């Protein structure tokens, strides 16, 4: 395949062009755009050569070849370029984590083990430097999930809170928000006898029996919470305030036990995943598996129970010493082949921009390319119940659109134009500004 080779001059031109685009504003005119001349990958049918995407009032108005362009539409010439739905990173700490090591900049993990009433959207910082940096790589919407640090530095709690979906541009979270509550995050307890203790900077060992006891206690407690939420809902339904005292935690769990809000269960080891599936089946919860490093061991079970998987980053080490060296790379294709819905995710903040890389690596190891595109653009929307608004280029959906100079999963591909909520959005960001600033630094005097 041909490697795209950008000279410094090309980059400078691209930068100059991007700087000319006004930063997004909610009141900016025009509200109508026509992206014309590009190859349009709608993800809802065959690609359209020389297609047009019409955007009006934040939504996709029309998609096709030979569409008449309204007089008031600003025309974006996408000749030689490719047009896709924006990418969707479904498990992040976007806006909740600015500098991972600086606790003052973190709103990821609350104290206590059971915090179902907490909602990520409450604390998403719309001015986070991560947002423009990430969207410049084509990620147009994300879900921020509380309690998902992915690293044992802080415990995120067992019921960590509600995950929120939002667009990657806007003045306030109210403007950015797609859905305040798309899932209840549960960090499935794991039987770990060894853990790293930061206080002493050493590995701590606990006897298996003790750890197992703790584990059983946690799982029982989770079950108790669900039972109590059910009773609470019943009492509430009866309508008499005398029958119940208002409880924000139980109130937040009611849609979970009623099957209206899915649980996003974070688990990696096969044993933990199996236990979580059993639990959710017994409790009649709608489960989404998050991370699932050993989900490949449970394909039958996951398929049978129709449980979708938000995949841990493809580029990771195998779980066990004797796990095939490429298992994390082949897992997405194995799950797809087994008929399990998958979506890629960064599980992070600063690495959210690596999302297409994770999908690309999975393609290298067997996942069909068009499925990989879906797994970074469409599938997360389906898994989290947002596919009526996102994921494809179809009329009526939120106009989150990227225009690229090639395959969006390939490492050298640039995002040339970015539309978020139907607004032409700058790809400028802190990193580019620093680059430009220091590139201009004169030679220091000797």
């Amino acid at each position, binding site marked *: 395949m041909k490697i795209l080779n950008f000279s410094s001059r090309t980059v400078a031109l691209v930068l100059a062009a991007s700087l000319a685009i006004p930063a997004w504003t909610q009141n900016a005119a025009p509200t109508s755009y026509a992206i014309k001349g590009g190859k349009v990958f709608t993800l809802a049918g065959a690609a359209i050569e020389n297609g047009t995407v019409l955007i009006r009032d934040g939504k996709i108005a029309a998609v096709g070849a030979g569409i008449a362009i309204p007089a008031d539409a600003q025309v974006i010439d996408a000749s030689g370029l490719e047009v896709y739905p924006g990418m969707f990173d479904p498990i992040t700490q976007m806006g909740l984590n600015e500098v991972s*090591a*600086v606790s003052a900049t973190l709103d990821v993990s609350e104290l206590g083990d059971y915090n179902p009433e907490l909602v990520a959207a409450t604390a998403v910082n719309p001015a986070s430097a991560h947002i423009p940096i990430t969207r410049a790589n084509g990620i147009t919407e994300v879900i921020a999930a509380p309690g998902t640090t992915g690293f044992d530095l802080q415990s995120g709690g067992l019921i960590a809170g509600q995950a929120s979906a939002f667009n990657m541009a806007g003045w306030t979270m109210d403007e950015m928000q797609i859905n305040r509550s798309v899932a209840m995050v549960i960090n499935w307890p794991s039987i770990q*006898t060894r853990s790293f203790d930061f206080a002493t*900077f050493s*590995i701590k060992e606990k006897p298996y029996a003790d750890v197992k006891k703790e584990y059983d206690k946690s799982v029982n407690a989770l079950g108790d919470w669900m039972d109590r939420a059910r009773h609470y809902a019943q009492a509430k339904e009866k309508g008499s305030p005398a029958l119940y005292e208002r409880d924000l935690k139980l109130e937040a769990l009611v849609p979970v036990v009623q099957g209206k809000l899915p649980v996003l269960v974070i688990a990696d080891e096969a044993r933990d995943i199996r236990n979580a599936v059993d639990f959710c089946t017994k409790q009649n919860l709608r489960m989404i598996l998050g991370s699932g490093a050993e989900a490949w061991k449970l394909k039958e079970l996951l398929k049978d129970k129709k449980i979708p998987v938000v995949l841990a980053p493809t580029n990771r080490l195998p779980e066990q010493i004797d796990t095939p060296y490429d298992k994390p790379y082949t897992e997405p294709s194995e799950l797809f082949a087994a008929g399990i819905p998958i979506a890629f995710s960064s*599980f*992070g903040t600063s690495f959210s921009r690596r999302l297409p890389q994770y999908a690309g690596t999975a393609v290298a190891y067997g996942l069909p390319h068009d499925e990989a595109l879906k797994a970074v653009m469409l599938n997360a929307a389906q898994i989290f119940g947002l596919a009526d608004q996102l994921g494809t280029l179809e009329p009526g959906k939120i106009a989150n659109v990227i225009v690229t100079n090639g395959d969006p999963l390939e490492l050298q591909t640039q995002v040339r134009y970015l539309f978020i909520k139907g607004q032409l959005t700058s790809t400028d960001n802190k990193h580019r500004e620093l680059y430009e600033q220091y590139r201009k630094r004169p030679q220091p005097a000797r």
Partner: protein
Amino acid sequence: MKRATICAAMLLFAACAPLVTRAQNPGTIFIQNATVLTVTHGNIEHGSILIRDGKIAAVGADLKAPEGAAIIDATGQYVMPGIIDCHSHIAVDGSVNEAGPAVSSMANIADVLNPDDIDIYRDLAGGVTTANILHGSANPIGGQTVVIKLRWGKPASELPFQGALPGIKFALGENPKHSNFPTPPGVTPRYPGTRLGVEEVIRQAFIEAREYKKQWDDYNQRKASGEQNLIPPRRNVQLDPLVEVMEGKRYVHAHCYRADEILMLIRVANEFGFKVRTFQHVLEGYKIADEIAASGAGGSTFSDWWAYKMEAFDAIPYNAALMTERGVIVSVNSDDAQEARQLNQEAAKSMKNGGLSANDALKLITLNPAIQLGIDARAGSIDVGKDADLAIYNRDPLSVYAVVQKTLIDGQVYFDRQRDIAERATLAAEKQTLLDKEKKAAEAKKAEEKSDKKPETKPDKKKKPPQDDGGAVESGVAGGLR
């Protein structure tokens, strides 16, 4: 716990044994019909590489396979120099930090190499052939370091890259001043606690080392002039490596982030007459690229890591390209066993971020780290006379879709993807046999003893503790501390 550990150990043995026997006797090998990415003299379409006794004997488009040569048919595939990772912590037994003293130059990573670390094999499967195994960054002056080849299956004594100069780790900023993890209750915080103190510790150590060197120089001089009954100075194993640094016999690899601390170390190095060989991480290197270039130091950085701690908040993915543009020899490193498996992808990002050419991007993980480690006469490009350390991909290695097919070190195939896949069923069966056997034995023992047994414990299988010391880290795959 025992069961799983034993199984793991046996499996490891089983996994490496066949590879070793097959990888013996380099002899004559002929790689044919590949796109050869030489790095130093362009790409050769339908090219061949002749390997004799572990060295590259010929490279070109119209070579003929000599009689009796083992043929590797690489039709449609790409051969590049084996990847050189200038910052790694694999193959280390236990902690990478001797974190007691602020100057731990007496500790040597070469003493604790672990040839059974599975990450050696995993990184080998990512095309890596050479790695700079560094001490951690807990101390302003850390431990001694060693360059190894990823000769999976060989004993620890055969891992070091023969002839490569040894190094020493220095560390500046948040990690040596212990910013990002709490001092345990009841423990007095260790000096230094600021960047000011970090400089002082390094200067003080070199003042002592200079004195110590002078004592030895005087002694040696007087001895050479024939003086009798001299008493040699007392040997100081902490200062010996610093003397070697001043004599240019040991490279300084300095962990650093911010521009100010980089300039500080350049000043200190000038004061004591040594050179910093590489600035590691050097995430703000782009701000002072001219000064780094003028000092003669290399820069070994990440592709796009940032914001995992305060001193990484101004990191930009254009760092490698911008430093290159200003004349610094730049490499992209891993600092992480997973990141090492994807260094080809990480290098490719510098084409997008800063507009490096494909060849310059490849240099970031081949020739440039070879120069930084002083092994460029032996590695880093596909040239006649160099070690036959090669990675063979199914397509252009700068594509996200490229997969390593074979990795050769000294002309021997140490990783072969097809062989790895073919052996999986055998290994799985072998594991099952062992598990069954052990289960049976355990049951028999249980029946025999009928007494209360000790509670079981489970071995560490999931997340490894951080290898480097220092700051907190963001989630996900690259979970080590930088």
